[in-house]
C-alpha cells in the first residue's frame, strides 16, 4: 500500500489514523532521510493516541515517552552508526512493553527490532510532497493496514 501526501498536514492525518488503530504492543518503524516527515508522521500517531501537547524530535535524547490512551515510546536511531549500538540501548522494555513504539531511522537497527512490525518507508518527491509505502510484517499489521484502508475509503465518501 502506498499513500502520496501533499503536505505536512496530510502526513499528520495519516499518522492520526494509525494512532486511532494502534494497540498496546504495536511497533511502527519509520525509514527515510532527514526531512521526509518522520517526526511529522509520529506527531500524527501521537495525536491519534490522544496525546496532548507537542511531540518533538527525539534525535538528541534518543527516546521520549508520552502518555495518551496508551503509552507512546518515540525512539530515534539517527545518531547510531552500528547495529551493536542499538543493542546497548536496552530497548526491550519498551519494544515488548505495553505501549506503542515508533522507531525513526529503523533501518539502522532492523536486525535488533521485533520481526513483526509495520514498516513505513518515506520518500521526498517534491518540496511538500512525500510518498509513504507500507510494509506490514505479521497478521497484526496486515489487519492494521486493512483497517487503515477502510478508514481512508470511508473518509473519502
Amino acid at each position, binding site marked *: 500500500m502506498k499513500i502520496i501526501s501533499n503536505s505536512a498536514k496530510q502526513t499528520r492525518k495519516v499518522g492520526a489514523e494509525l494512532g486511532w488503530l494502534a494497540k498496546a504492543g504495536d511497533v511502527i518503524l519509520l525509514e527515510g*532521510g*532527514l*526531512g521526509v516527515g518522520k*517526526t*511529522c508522521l509520529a*506527531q500524527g500517531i501521537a495525536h491519534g493516541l490522544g496525546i496532548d501537547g*507537542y511531540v*518533538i*524530535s527525539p*534525535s*538528541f*535524547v*534518543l*527516546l*521520549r*515517552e*508520552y502518555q495518551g490512551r496508551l503509552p507512546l515510546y518515540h525512539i530515534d536511531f*539517527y*545518531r*547510531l*552508526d552500528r547495529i551493536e*549500538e542499538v543493542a*546497548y*540501548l*536496552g530497548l526491550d522494555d519498551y519494544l515488548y512493553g505495553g505501549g506503542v513504539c515508533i522507531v525513526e531511522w529503523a533501518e539502522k537497527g532492523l536486525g535488533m527490532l521485533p520481526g513483526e512490525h509495520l514498516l513505513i518507508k518515506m520518500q521526498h518527491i517534491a*518540496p511538500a510532497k512525500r510518498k509513504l509505502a507500507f510494509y506490514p510484517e505479521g497478521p497484526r499489521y496486515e489487519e492494521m493496514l486493512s483497517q487503515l484502508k477502510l478508514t481512508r475509503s470511508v473518509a473519502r465518501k
Partner: protein
Amino acid sequence: MKILGIESSCDETAAAVVEDGTKILSNIIASQVEIHSRYGGIVPEIASRQHLLSVIPVVEQALSNASVTPDGLSAIAVTNGPGLAGSLLVGVNLAKALALAWDLPLIGINHLEAHIYANWLGEDTPVFPLLALIVSGGHTDLVLMSNHGELLLLGRTRDDAAGEAFDKVARMLELGYPGGPAVERASREGTPRYHLPRAWLKGSDDFSFSGLKTAVVRLAEELGISTMPHPNSVAADIAASFQRSVVDVLVTKTTAAANRHGVKQVLLAGGVAANELLRETVVRRLPTPVLVPDPVLCTDNAAMIASCGYFHLLAGKVAGWDLDVIPGLKLG
C-alpha cells in the same frame, strides 16, 4: 547556606557546592563527550554506566574543592527530570542516600528551571520580571519568570530543538560532534550567502526548526556537498547561513515576547547560549539588559542545580524520600 548540587540527566556527571544560591565554591563536571563523540551522540546505556562510575568521585571532589564537610551543608539538590531515566536515577539515588546518611533536606530540581539559574552565578543578579530563553539539544523554551518559583512557559519548539538542529546540520555537513561548536567553528570560515527559511509562527511564541533543517538537507544535496572534500568552503557557507537563520529567529521572537510582557531583563540559558553569534546578536538587538551566563555554566553543570536548590529551600520546597525521576518533566 551551602547547597550540594548533583546533576546526571544527560551526558555530564556533575557536582557542585554553591553558597546562598550565588557563590560557586566548587563546580566539578565529568564530561562524557569524548566517549559519546565516537557514537555521534548520547547513548543512554553508556551514559548511565558512566554516571555510576563518575558520580561518587565527582561529589567527593566537589566537597573537597569547596573545603566543605557534610555538616557544613544545608541541603542536597538533585536533578530529577527531564532527562534519560537511567541517567537521572544515578544522581537521584545517590542524593537520597547522602541526604539520609547526613540528615539533610533533599530537593528535587527541574533541569530546565536550573538552566535559568546559571544566571544567578554571575556578577549581576537577575531582576524580575524576566524572560529566559533556554536553548539546548533537547529543548528550546521561552519562559516568563515573575519571581522565584513563578514560571510561565510562553513558547517551545514544536519539532526540533535548536541544539538538535545544530547537531543534525553538523552531521550532515560532516563538521563533527558536538554539533554546536562544530557549526560555529565552520561558520567563522564561511559567509551566510544562502537564504534559508525562518519559521516565524506568527501569533505564537513557539519555535520550529524542522523546516530549516530540511531546507539545509535540500541545499546540501543541490550543491553536491557529499562529493566535495572536507572541510570545504561551501559547507562553511551553509553552516554560516544556517547559524544566522537560527539566531535570527531566536532573537526576533525573544525580542517580541520581551516587549509584549514588559520584562526588565532577558536571560539566556542552555548549551546553545554558549554560541557567540547568539550572544552578540541578543545583546545588540534587545532593548532590555541581557544576562548571559559564562559559557561553562551554559552547558549542563551542577552549580545551577545547587543555586536553584537554594531558592527552593528558602521557599520550603523540599522533597520526600519518594522523590522519583520524571523523564518528561515539564516547566511551569
